[in-house]
Structures are given as C-alpha cells and as structure tokens.
C-alpha cells in the first residue's frame, strides 16, 4: 500500500488485512508504555488545510506510538497563508526528507494530486465532500470489535447530512465491501443529487427504519458546508432525524449507535444516547488511533512495496 486515498482503491482483502493488523496495534495502545520502535527514523507530516483537531491528533498519536517523528503543517501562520500553492508547499515539505504526508483539504481530490507530485506516501485525512477513508476503517473496526469479524448482512443506517459528508461516502463503500446492507436516512435536501455509485437504499423517515437496523451511524450536521437553509431549523431537524432517547429505546436490544464526532449534542444525538451503553463513540476514538497505526505501518514499514 503506497497511499491511502480512498476506500475505492481498496479490495475487501486489503480492508480485512488492515483490520487484523489493527488488533496488534490496539494491544500496543493498551500498554503502559504504548510505543513500539517499528517506524523509528521515519517522518510523518500532517498537512491540514482545514480545521481538525481530533483527526490530526489521532494521526500524530498513531505516528508517535510507532516511534515516527511527526511535524504539523497547519495553514494559519504558514506559507500557505502567504499565497504559496499546494504543489509548492508539498514539494518544499518533501525536500526536507519525509516519508508520509497526512493531508486534509477542503477540495475533493487534493490528496490524489499531492500523491502525484511526491514520492512520499499520502494518507487522505478528509478531502472536501469526497472521502475520509481512515474514519470508515475505524468504523468498520469498531463494529468488528463489538460484533465479531464478519459484517456480512449487517443492517446499517447512515443518518443525516449525507450530501456534505465524506464520512458517509467512505463508510458506505467500506461497509459494503465487507458485506453490510446500508440505508441512507435523510431529508431529500441532505442527500446527494445523484445516488449513482452509492450502493445503498434510501429512506426519508428515521422512525420507519429504527426497528430494522443493527447499527445507526449519525452524521454531524455540517453547517459550515451548507450555503443555504436545507431544513427549517435545528429543532425541526432534531425532531425528525435526531437520535433521541425515545428513538434509541425503539432500536433492537443490541443495536449500536455511532457518531464520527464532533457531536452536536441535542441535534443529531441526545446526550443520554451518546453516553449510553449502545454508543460506541468513545471506542471509535480509541480504535481510530490503532487503525491509523495500521495504515501508517502498512505504508511505511515494508517500503510500501507490497499490496
């Protein structure tokens, strides 16, 4: 694996191998000294053109637990703010001798462009409305930890702002790759204009699917990406699509509730549900570090020559 740009680039066996690798890194993460020397002497740079605290810290924690050196290139205060092009920025960073770049960018396809310009490995940490592959991998991993290694036939509802969500796009592809059945639940205004290429069913009424799903993935309402009013009010959204305590009670007894974070408590999800037994939200964060360790290890530990 030379780069991780999109779930689209992966085969089912790649995802399964990464999941198995993640088991080893979860064990490492649980140690008193959570560090192995696997990537000693390697340098991983976070190149973040969009605000993100949790993803950046998750990647940096992952790199440090593998003993790689890490650097952060944020936009504010850097030369990008002075007008330097992405290409020049990336070339400059590469000239410093780095092994991998973790890229987050507001434009879909930016990590792919970066991968074409440099020899270092590139990980997509979210590009516009396109993909967020490591989030999808950690969601799959979290489900495997909870439910066992096979997700075949698992019924998953992805609820909310699908149109603006790169998490939804990656989740659908990854979960489908592992055999899950996906239903997108959203008002028509929050669904993509075309659902071609989305191997999923669509529903507009959350209440009608509650009793038929094993997992509900709630998406964050991305108000920063919405240029117009797509629903009447937050309260109205929450009434129709929020995971309230009442809705959670109508889920199957073992159904799980996931959220990629950051949460808008009281909008997509009630605090009571977010902190309840069905919620995997905290596990998702912990598993995220282990999954990112697996990705970085796969890219850098074997010279990137295989798979």
């Amino acid at each position, binding site marked *: 694996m030379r780069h991780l740009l999109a779930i689209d680039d992966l085969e089912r066996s790649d995802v399964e191998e990464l999941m198995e690798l993640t088991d*080893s890194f979860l*064990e490492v993460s649980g140690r008193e000294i959570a560090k192995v020397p696997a990537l000693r002497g390697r340098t991983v740079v976070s190149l973040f053109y969009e605000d993100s605290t949790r993803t950046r810290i998750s990647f940096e924690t992952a790199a440090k637990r593998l003993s790689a050196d890490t650097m952060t290139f944020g936009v504010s205060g850097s030369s990008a703010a002075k007008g330097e092009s992405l290409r020049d920025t990336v070339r400059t960073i590469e000239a410093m001798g780095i092994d991998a770049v973790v890229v987050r960018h507001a434009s879909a396809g930016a990590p792919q462009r970066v991968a074409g310009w440099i020899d270092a490995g590139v990980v997509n940490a979210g590009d516009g409305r396109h993909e967020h592959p490591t989030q999808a991998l950690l969601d799959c991993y979290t489900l495997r930890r909870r439910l066992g290694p096979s997700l075949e036939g698992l019924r998953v509802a992805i609820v909310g702002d699908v149109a603006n969500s790169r998490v939804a796009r990656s989740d659908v592809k990854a979960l489908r790759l592992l055999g899950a059945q996906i239903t997108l639940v959203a008002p028509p205004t929050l669904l993509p204009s075309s659902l071609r290429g989305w191997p999923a069913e669509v529903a507009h009424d959350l209440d009608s699917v509650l009793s038929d799903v094993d997992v509900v993935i709630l998406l964050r309402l991305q108000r920063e990406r919405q240029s117009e009013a797509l629903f009447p009010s937050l309260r109205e959204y929450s009434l129709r699509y929020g995971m309230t305590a009442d809705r959670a009670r109508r889920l199957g007894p073992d159904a799980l509730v996931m959220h990629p974070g950051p949460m808008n408590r009281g909008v997509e999800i009630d605090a009571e549900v977010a902190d309840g037994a069905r919620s995997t939200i905290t596990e998702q964060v912990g598993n995220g570090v282990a999954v990112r360790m697996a990705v970085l290890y796969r890219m850098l*530990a074997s010279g990137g020559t295989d798979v």
Partner: protein
Amino acid sequence: MSAPGPVDGPASDDAVFHTRVFDADDLRRAHTRIAHEIVERNHGADNVVLVGLYTRGVAIARRLAASICTFEDADVPVGALDVSFYRDDIALRSVQPVGPTEVPVDVADRTVVLVDDVLFTGRTVRAALDALTELGRPRAVQLAVLIDRGHRELPVRADYVGKNLPTRTAEDVRVRLHETDDSDDVVEIWGPVEEPGRSAGDRSSEGRSSGSRPS
C-alpha cells in the same frame, strides 16, 4: 506414528524434501524432556511464565505448560509474543505481525522462558528481548527452542534445546505442528536438489552433539 515422507508445506521455490528429523513421538519426548529441564533448573515452576513467539512457539509453549502440569503441581501461565515491530529488518522486507501480544501475568520479578520452534540467526530472539522488556522487567529470561540449526548472527544461546541440528543455510527446517499447520507433528529438512559430487561438507556442525546442551 505417521508414515515417513514429505509433508505438505509452502515449498520455498523448488525446495525438495531431504530428511525427517523428528516424528510426533520424537517431538513429544523432546518437549517432555525440556519441560523437566525447565522445572529442574528453576527449582520448581512457581515463578515461571512461558512466552511463545508466534506462531509455533506459542503452540510449543502450551505443550510445555501442559507437560509440566502432569508431573509438577503447578499451573504455568502461557503468553504469546509478537516480535514484528521490534525486528531489525522491518524496513527491508514486509514484516507483518501475526497476532496481538498477550501475556496474562505481570512479567516483573518472574522468570520468563521464551519459546520458539527454530533458533537460527538469533535475530528473532533479539527482537523478542526488546518486545519483552517493554512489558516489564523479568527477574530472568531463558530461551527454549525445539531445534537449534546453527548459523547465529548475534550472540544468542538457548538454555533448553530439543535437538541441535547442523544445517546448510540454503536448507529450510520445517516444523509442522497439528495445532498450527493442519499436519501431523514433524520436523523435516527441505532444501535445494543435491548436486552430484557435492557433499554435505559445508554443514555447520560446530562440533555440537545432538540433544540438550549442557547449561
């Protein structure tokens, strides 16, 4: 006892079967003897932890623990150690971890017996020592191997040896265990087709005899 003959295995290139070294009975005798040696040397088994190196080392460690259980009133804990992240060739080839490290007890102040199937260059054991150190500070670390095939590249020595087996570097020592390989228990030497006129004179015998090395 299984019929002699080559076992199936991932043939490295065009390796052919050379000799069978151990059959299932030989293997049982070897680990029974090693089990006794471990208990004798440590004056009992109370403070001993057996830590197998993935994959076959773990199976052998379990056998040793089961064996000790039959003659000593002790339930010896067994762990599994993955050394991948500590290997020195991690940047040179694809090193994939086999499974998560799992050691059920705190190794601090205990005697850890590392268990592996074949001792060759010593690099795996070096990596294992690093991996083990991160779990705690054992009182002592000992090494038990089924086969010592020579060709050490690091100053590593086993405390318990099933059999010292002179080999050529081109040869492959194949340990097959029913727990891990869907095969009868055997140890065999595989290697290149013997060229006429070439003897086994370059075998690394290093003047050792078979059996346990005096410790």
